[in-house]
């Protein structure tokens, strides 16, 4: 795997950087947050992203996408993460698109084209408890002629509160906890029997609780094979874990930069506080940790496009390491800012809030450390 981005990826990253600094600096996030819009994103911005082709980066060219790969979309997310840009890009263009790629040709054509052209919004309903667990699934889909009937509950559905389509992981056979017997379906979010409650999270984004009460769905909406979705789920989760790590890295880098700037500017006891050795050492350690994170992220995001055979483990490496470092940096940043760090007026606290939510997306550091150990054979 290459540990340096190629020209195409650098280009995408640069344009995202420009976009974030011009159109979605953190003031944009604050506007959306403090507005009456429940969605917590700005549809105008979303349409601009769509017209830049970002929703099509993982979409094959035959459906209008650019197929620029996981490293491409992740590089964009990293830059958007710097300014905490709120948008359904991750849930739609990474998670949703990667799932739909396994659907039937008809479904693919229908949905992917709309994602690329109109910014159709997708979300993935998988979690059923307060901790990520891709096999702890009891939401049931029962075959009923040429239909399936879905019953059960889902929680922490990222961007689930305002999605157009929902992709849901159900149990079609086997016990809760088993890898066998999982199936994926795609359905409209306004399907009969589906109740969606958008929850407002501490990072001001939305995640949703969903309740399926005998939701009827035709067999054509099955993604992949019945009972056999586990591999698809894990492979899509790994792509998503790598991509969200990139976004988290962007946020961590920016929180660190803001703090570094503050250390160089704030005076106490007649000196810049950045001259105090204890703070210098902590800053230097964070720098080192961030360098390690950068390597994990780039190795991980390029591994999917380059067909590496260690993608699973690299995704866990990346999510575990970046999660831990973003956690550290979000705490240290607030502390180094002192009193103003805990006021809503300053941006640094926004990164702290985002850090904890992002840590939980598709497995926290504990989960991924454990998975890394298992994949390494102990």
């Amino acid at each position, binding site marked *: 795997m290459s540990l340096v981005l190629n020209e195409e990826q650098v280009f995408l990253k640069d344009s995202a950087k420009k976009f974030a600094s011009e159109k979605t600096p953190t003031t944009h996030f604050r506007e959306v947050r403090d507005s009456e819009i429940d969605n917590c994103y700005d549809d105008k911005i979303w349409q601009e992203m769509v017209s830049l082709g970002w929703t099509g980066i993982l979409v094959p060219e035959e459906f209008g996408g650019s197929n620029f790969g996981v490293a491409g979309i992740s590089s964009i997310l990293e830059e958007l993460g710097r300014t905490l840009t709120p948008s359904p890009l991750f849930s739609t263009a990474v998670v949703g698109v990667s799932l739909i790629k396994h659907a039937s040709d008809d479904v693919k054509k229908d949905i992917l084209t709309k994602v690329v052209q109109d910014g159709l919004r997708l979300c993935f309903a998988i*979690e059923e*408890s*307060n*901790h*990520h667990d891709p096999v702890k699934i009891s939401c049931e889909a029962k075959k009923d002629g040429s239909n399936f009937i879905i019953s059960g509950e889902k*929680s*922490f559905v990222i961007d689930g509160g305002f999605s157009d389509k929902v992709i849901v992981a159900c149990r079609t056979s086997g016990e809760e906890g088993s890898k066998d017997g999982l199936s994926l379906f795609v359905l409209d979010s306004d399907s009969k029997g589906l109740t969606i*409650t958008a*929850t*407002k*999270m*501490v*990072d*001001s984004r939305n*995640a949703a*609780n969903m309740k399926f009460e005998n939701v009827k769905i035709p067999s054509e909406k099955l993604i992949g094979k019945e009972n056999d979705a586990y591999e698809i789920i894990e492979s899509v989760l790994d792509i998503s874990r790598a991509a969200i790590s990139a976004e988290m890295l962007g946020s961590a880098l920016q929180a660190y930069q803001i703090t570094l700037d503050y250390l160089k500017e704030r*005076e*106490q*006891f*007649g000196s810049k506080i950045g001259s*105090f050795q*204890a*703070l210098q050492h902590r800053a230097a350690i964070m720098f080192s940790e961030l360098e390690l994170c950068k390597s994990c992220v780039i190795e991980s995001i390029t591994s999917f496009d380059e067909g590496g055979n260690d993608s699973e483990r690299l995704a866990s490496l990346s999510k575990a390491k970046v999660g831990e470092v973003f956690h550290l940096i979000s*705490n240290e940043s*607030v*502390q180094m800012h*002192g*009193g103003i*760090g*805990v*006021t*809503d*007026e300053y941006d640094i*606290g*926004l990164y*702290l*809030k985002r850090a*904890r*939510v992002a840590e*939980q997306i598709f497995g*926290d550091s*504990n989960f991924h*450390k*454990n998975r890394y150990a298992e994949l390494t054979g102990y």
Partner: protein
Amino acid sequence: MENLDQFRKETKEWLEENCPPEMRKPMGPGDVVWGGRNCKFPHPDAKLWLERMGEKGWTCPTWPKEYGGGGLSFDENKILQEELMAIRARPALSSFGIWMLGPALLEFASEEQKKKYIPEIVKGEIRWCQGYSEPGSGSDLASLKTKAEDNGDHFIVNGQKVWTSYADDCDMIFTLVRTGPQEPKHDGISFLLIDMDQPGVTTKPIKLISGKSPFCETFFDNAIVPKENLVSELNKGWDVAKRLLQHERNMIAGMGLGGAGSAKKKKDQTISSGMATMAKTYVGEEEGKLANAGLRQKIASFDINSHAFSLTMRRASEESKSSNSGPSPASSMFKYYGSESNKLRYELMLEAMGTKALGWEGEGFGPAELAITREWLRTKANSIEGGTSEVQLNIIAKRVLDLPQ
């Protein structure tokens, strides 16, 4: 000993008679009695209870009787606290006057000042807030810029304070102001008591990452302060401040408690860790053990440190009992460890609760869960307010360990 037994008996009787039944019920968040000119009592019994306790001086049990305090000895006060606990009596009065200003006045104020202000604090007639920090001066408190100019029989005060808790509800503020701009910075500071009921003083609440807060910004715009409101000598306010900061540190240090060690043992000798019990409900258990091994290990480390910390608080109190030395530089250790520990407690709760601890408001979360999210954010200030962790470590290094400057 016999006297103490007698005291316990009398105290028990007095409390039985004077503590109204309503004041023996558990408190809700709105039930704190802060006193003050515009005191809001949650219940008429709360007023009665404050009056009775204030009359006996038992809102400030160990303060001298001559200024309205209870005049109790260390041991008598211990008994009083035990008996109050026994009937689950609510505190009659909570106040920064009791916790912070009072002890400083007793040590530094003139006889007239003590006679005037201490009884008001004991009875809860005046509600005080603290005006130390300024926007430009955080850890470096002495770099404060709010200035008081001599104008004959009064000072004219101009400037701004931040982090003044409850300033918008308080009657008076005790402040550090610059009176000697020419002096080296610690020597030009004075300690002033300022009445907030005047046009020259205005306040504005501060919004925190955790949401609304009791903190305010307080602005002085040609505020008038009579000269008799100067505590200690002119330009000697720093000594008062230092002592007060130690009291504040001790207050905040106490928050680090609450792990397995401080858990109450039940009669059947089962000991439980609040954290682990809570975690079990969110991650489950296997054969009695917390299901997540990594989290279990972290909670055990936390509980062990918590237990050790609470023993250390107790040891310090036992050791100082005989020597009666008051707050020492080691209080920096308690402030440091206590606030770091409290932050860690909430990080662990978040880890245990997963997505359930990440709600902000609205549906999908229980009220206790939402409260934990907010409190987690609130704890981030623990290691900043009352002197940052870094400042505490500096103090330990210099004053306790005597390391070179």
